[in-house]
């Protein structure tokens, strides 16, 4: 069985504050990413290509907090983090605090495939991007009026409107391909009004992103600091591998016992060795979608 799941962030998503038009836009964005990733699997492509395709689509969609439309730092700039992991050989690539790379997930993949390193940050990561032939874009490309007003609200100490996906949001994808290879990818602009240089869990292998063939692939979204301290994504895989827990039980324990105990919330998507998808969250809602070759197909927010 092959399968893909995606998320577009978790947080307070009160039904009342999401207009039907806006909800329709988010659903369409999730549908496009899910379809883009699933199409790769359907034609026999790898889980790695599928998660890359899905995350790239979410990065390009200004509705989501990654790539264009990312949350802004306290200085009003976009600083992007992303990671990708190949469960087959447990290869991984990640970038943090890049400001001029249109699709950070593609740069993360390039770090994995063309460098001897796993994580590159800041100007050094962009230097590598240029050496690899990436065209850089101005930081303005990422900034949308919605994110700018969200930042202004936050800086005035006002309650941030829930009209846009919550500031904690992140996008991610996990997939299992026809050969049973697992992959995970995550991309984000981080928290609104964050301090420049702050790196969350998304590019941290084991925290926001993890994949290991024969076990599971996981992508996280939520309050990143808590996910780092809990080594969230790897915790889930370790619980499956060492304790024989189902992916569902492992994710439930992490979100509803461990992270809740620490005071953190968020969501996780995962796929196990058999291609079974699990999506769970401790927030009010999580933008998410799942599709598999056994006929499952869903998009959900609440």
């Amino acid at each position, binding site marked *: 069985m092959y399968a893909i799941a995606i998320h577009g962030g978790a947080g307070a998503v009160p039904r009342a504050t999401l207009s039907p038009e806006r909800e329709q836009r988010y659903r369409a964005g999730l549908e496009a990413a899910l379809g883009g990733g699933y199409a790769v699997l359907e034609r026999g492509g790898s889980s790695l290509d599928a998660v890359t395709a899905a995350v790239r689509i979410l990065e390009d969609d200004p509705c989501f907090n990654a790539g264009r439309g990312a949350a802004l730092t306290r200085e009003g700039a976009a600083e992007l983090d992303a990671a990708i992991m190949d469960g087959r050989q*447990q290869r991984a690539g990640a970038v943090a605090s890049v400001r001029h790379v249109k699709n950070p997930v593609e740069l993360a993949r390039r770090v994995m495939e063309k460098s001897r390193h796993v994580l590159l940050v800041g100007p050094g990561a962009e230097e590598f991007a240029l050496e690899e032939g990436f065209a850089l874009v101005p930081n303005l490309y990422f900034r949308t009026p919605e994110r700018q007003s969200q930042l202004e609200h936050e800086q005035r100490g006002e309650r941030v409107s829930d009209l846009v996906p919550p500031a904690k949001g992140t996008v991610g994808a996990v997939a299992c391909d026809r050969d049973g290879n697992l992959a995970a990818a995550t991309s984000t602009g981080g928290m609104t009004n964050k301090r420049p240089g702050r790196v969350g869990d998304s590019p941290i292998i*084991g925290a926001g992103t993890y994949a290991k063939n024969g076990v599971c692939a996981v992508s996280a979204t939520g309050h990143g600091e808590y996910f780092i301290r809990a080594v969230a994504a790897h915790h889930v895989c370790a619980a499956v591998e060492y304790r024989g827990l189902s992916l569902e039980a492992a994710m439930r324990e992490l979100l509803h016992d461990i992270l809740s105990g620490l005071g953190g919330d968020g969501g996780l998507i995962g796929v196990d060795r058999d291609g079974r998808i699990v999506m769970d969250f401790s927030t009010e809602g999580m933008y998410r979608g799942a599709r598999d070759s056994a006929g499952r197909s869903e998009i959900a927010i609440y």
Partner: protein
Amino acid sequence: MTRRKTRLLTSLVLAAAATLPAAPLPAAEHPIVIVIHGGAGVIERSRMSPEREASYRAGLSAALDAGYAVLEQGGSSLDAVGAAIRTMEDDPQFNAGRGAVLNHDGFCELDAAIMDGSGPRAGAVAGVHHVKNPIDLARLVMDKSPHVLLAGQGAEEFALEQGVTLVPESYFITPQRVRELEEAKRAAATRAPTAPLPIRPQAGKGMGTVGALALDAQGHLAAGTSTGGIDNKLYGRVGDTPIIGAGTYASESCAVSGTGQGEFYIRQVVAYDICAMVAYQHVSLEAAVHTMIHDKLKRTGGEGGVIALDHAGNYAMDFNSAGMHRGVRDSRGHREIAMYRDAN
């Protein structure tokens, strides 16, 4: 190193483990312990001059005792780890702080992390160029910011806001590291761009990362790690050191600090995985460390070592490289500094 010596060492370790309590002790009964490392690599007696060896031993000794003194005075494991690591950061022999290795562009980029097992709380910095003691800045991130990891210029901005005095890049650069970078660049010219960089290839050249673990009188564990990374690394490269779970991890019952080829440590989430094996597979700390270093890590081609410490005061120091600078001191009267395979 002979096979017989290895066996002897193994049996000694096993004998020691068998006499240690399996269950956590009441707070007043567990020992206070500090464990440190100063990097792993090709550390062989035949390649080490007596002067250099003595100098490394003195450096390790100073760090070990600085950390232990904090514990002895009733200080916290966090403060002990900070004191031990700061001592090694200031010592140009070690690849952290002053004397850190240089990146491909010829300057130092420093990474550090600290974790409080009783929180769990953690702080880390990556890619800083002007912070004399990155371990102190990691501690400030933990204590004074809502974040865990700050990178690059943003981390230095935070340092200034916290009143940390920045130093010029030249402070960190030593003539030896400049020579080593030139050698590393020549060697790299013969390798594929994706081939892993070797951790320090020869004895006598400053070794990897530094780290420390401590168990204080209150029974709290802490872990810290600090490094300049791998020389000739790409500008912006971050290794396992500041990655919580990879190079640094502490919980209420288990603390680990790693040194080696960081990319392998990140992929395998080495530090956390050791603690997970202990917690979930009910194996001893020694056994979990052994599995990680000699099986999991080695199978993927990763080279290096770790130190590990649990809440009962059991510790392990193991490596799959030729040697590892290491030391341990506890209130049971044990004090040991070693660098070679044969426990010396």
